[in-house]
């Protein structure tokens, strides 16, 4: 217990240096070419070289918070889906869910980086000299009340049917939003949206096909999809309740008012339900705690556990290089 306690200072996991005078246990693997360590040799800014100038007449703080909302939905949904890795019903679905998770993580990274560029004061402060980039600081060093994802994204995966319903609802709502966001006055948001649209179209079709398959499958799969719909539906309405920041961003031509996509999303889901022989649920929305929802930083108990798992390693090494 003597030496170990001294070694508990956050370690920096830099790539092995083949030029170190002491050498490294990895020397034999390197073959003298450090480019083999493509991952972890350096930080890759997802917006490197992209013009992040804030459009005229747009408040930087509002823009930053708006980007956090879009980013947090993707980040938290991505993390939840990643929990299926090695646990899905079969290998193909395992890979499919991991792919959807990766697409959402990519969207989240770009949006977190855009949030940090729009308003650096949103980024949690870390020890001086910490190499943790702003997007990671936002993902791993904010507390639950600082996250503004819709609560739909944070609830447990449940069984495969619950995951399918959550994925279908989220992809449908996000696709409708991103289709409109392609016309954003913010060039970065417009570019992120244009890319996201292509990805989300695949996600929505994937989830829709599984919804239909489960609903028209066996008695057991039908029972599960019916139960899943009842589980997820209370969190559906919240996706279309605009936060004041979303309203302001829509007014200046940068954001999209989520209330404006509600009808379109309902029509698409009604198509899936009709083909599946399922009634659109008539279930009251989950209450807003003291009028506060996910966008306001009000979250469910499941979210604290998710954050604990997602953030613990990064928080143990606030000066770590990954």
């Amino acid at each position, binding site marked *: 217990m003597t030496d170990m306690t001294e070694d508990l200072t956050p370690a920096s996991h830099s790539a092995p240096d083949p030029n170190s005078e002491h050498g490294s246990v990895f020397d034999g693997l390197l073959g003298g070419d450090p480019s083999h360590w493509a991952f972890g040799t350096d930080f890759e800014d997802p917006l490197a070289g992209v013009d992040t100038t804030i459009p005229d007449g747009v408040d930087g703080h509002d823009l930053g918070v708006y980007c956090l909302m879009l980013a947090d939905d993707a980040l938290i949904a991505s993390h939840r889906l990643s929990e299926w890795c090695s646990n899905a019903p079969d290998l193909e679905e395992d890979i499919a869910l991991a792919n959807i998770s990766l697409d959402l993580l*990519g969207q989240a990274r770009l949006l977190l980086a855009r949030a940090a560029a729009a308003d650096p004061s949103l980024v949690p402060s870390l020890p001086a000299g910490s190499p943790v980039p702003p997007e990671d600081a936002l993902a791993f060093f904010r507390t639950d009340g600082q996250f503004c994802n819709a609560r739909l994204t944070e609830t447990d995966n449940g069984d495969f049917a619950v995951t399918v319903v959550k994925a279908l609802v989220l992809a449908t709502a996000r696709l409708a939003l991103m289709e409109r966001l392609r016309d954003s006055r913010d060039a970065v948001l417009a*570019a992120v949206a*244009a*890319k996201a649209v292509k990805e989300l179209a695949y996600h929505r079709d994937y989830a829709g096909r599984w919804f239909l398959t489960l609903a028209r499958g066996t008695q057991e799969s039908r029972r599960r999809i019916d139960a899943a719909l009842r589980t997820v539906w209370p969190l559906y309405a919240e996706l279309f309740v605009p936060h004041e920041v979303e309203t302001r961003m829509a007014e200046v031509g940068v954001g999209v008012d989520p209330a404006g996509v509600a009808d379109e999303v309902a029509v698409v889901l009604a198509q899936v339900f009709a083909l599946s022989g399922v009634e659109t649920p008539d279930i009251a929305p989950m209450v807003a705690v003291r009028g506060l929802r996910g966008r306001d930083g009000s979250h469910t108990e499941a979210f604290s556990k998710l954050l604990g798992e997602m953030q613990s390693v990064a928080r143990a090494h606030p000066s770590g290089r990954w």
Partner: protein
Amino acid sequence: MLTLADLGVLRAVDVDEGDHVTVSITPTYSGCPAMASMRDDLVRTLADEGLTATVKVVLAPAWSSDDITPAGRAALAAHGLSAPGPATRHTGPIALNLMPVRRSLTCPHCGSYAAQLSSEFGPTACTALYRCGACGEPFEHVKEI
């Protein structure tokens, strides 16, 4: 050889004063994990030629599988990958598609048309998984996007 230019990932190369080059690349998918690898390879390869390089990310216009050149498609096939067909151009809302995906493609190993889709999502973000009904070999198809 399959180059970044053939994949449509390389957007611009600007030679600045002296021996400095600015290279612009675009990601295929938002979460493409190969971006760092591509950047490092570019910097290293140019350094071997005596040039310093800055690599910039370009997000717009978003990459499309239509950006892969004919030479790129041939190189994909030579590596056992099925090249993408034309990407759908969307005007207005994207229609829901709950039917099985149908593509006209051939097995890159034996040329058979009897390819069966295993999954729309493959080992990388940009590919779907197929299995050839004739030779039985699995193969990846680069998705239309």
